[in-house]
């Protein structure tokens, strides 16, 4: 699984991307966010207010119940501010 972080999530976590083997017991977006927060440090800080965080799986915005597989590109970021 490829993980991407943007904006202040990237800054707090400390890197823009990483490769990760799907952790045991993680099946959906909610599970992945919980697992990442459980890593502590920058992850815990970045994901403290997890409700504001948005997620895209394979470049599509998804909800918390979206399934996650080991071949996915998962991006985590704050609300967008383009334009």
């Amino acid at each position: 699984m490829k993980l991407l972080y943007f904006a202040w999530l990237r800054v707090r976590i400390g890197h823009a991307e990483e490769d990760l083997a799907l952790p045991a017991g993680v099946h959906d977006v909610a599970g992945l966010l919980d697992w990442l927060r459980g890593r502590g440090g920058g992850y815990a800080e970045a994901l403290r207010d997890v409700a504001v965080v948005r997620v895209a799986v394979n470049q599509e915005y998804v909800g918390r119940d979206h399934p996650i597989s080991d071949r996915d590109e998962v991006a985590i970021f704050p609300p967008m501010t383009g334009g």
Partner: protein
Amino acid sequence: MIRVQREDFDIGRELDRLAAGDHSVGGVASFIGLVRDMGGPEPVSALTLEHYPGMTEKKLAEIEAEANRRWPLSASLIVHRYGRLEPGDRIVLVATASPHREAALAACHFLIDWLKTDAPFWKSEATPEGERWVAARTEDDAAARRWREEQ
């Protein structure tokens, strides 16, 4: 057409090109977003735009296709910059050409509202206090929602 680029763009050339040679076009509407510094206690010396390469292009193409589905457009264009910009610099251009004035104006308004909330860009401002991430505005969500309800 959509483009995501670091470089500035030439408004006159982009708008002329949009309708060039198509005599059925009666109106070209456009909106240009600029880096703003409202002064005040925390002046902005620079704005950095981060984006999600690949997904950005995909979302902009979807937004443009949606506008073309809703209105009879002869041509449309979204150019969005990323990287470090300064106050007064252009950030984004959206432009629409149509035989009909109302279609061009409405589609242009739709495109800028929609890409504000739907395209994966993030802004941070350089201020004397340091970097500050620009927060999403609830007004922007409301503006985009309006178009969903009108669908």
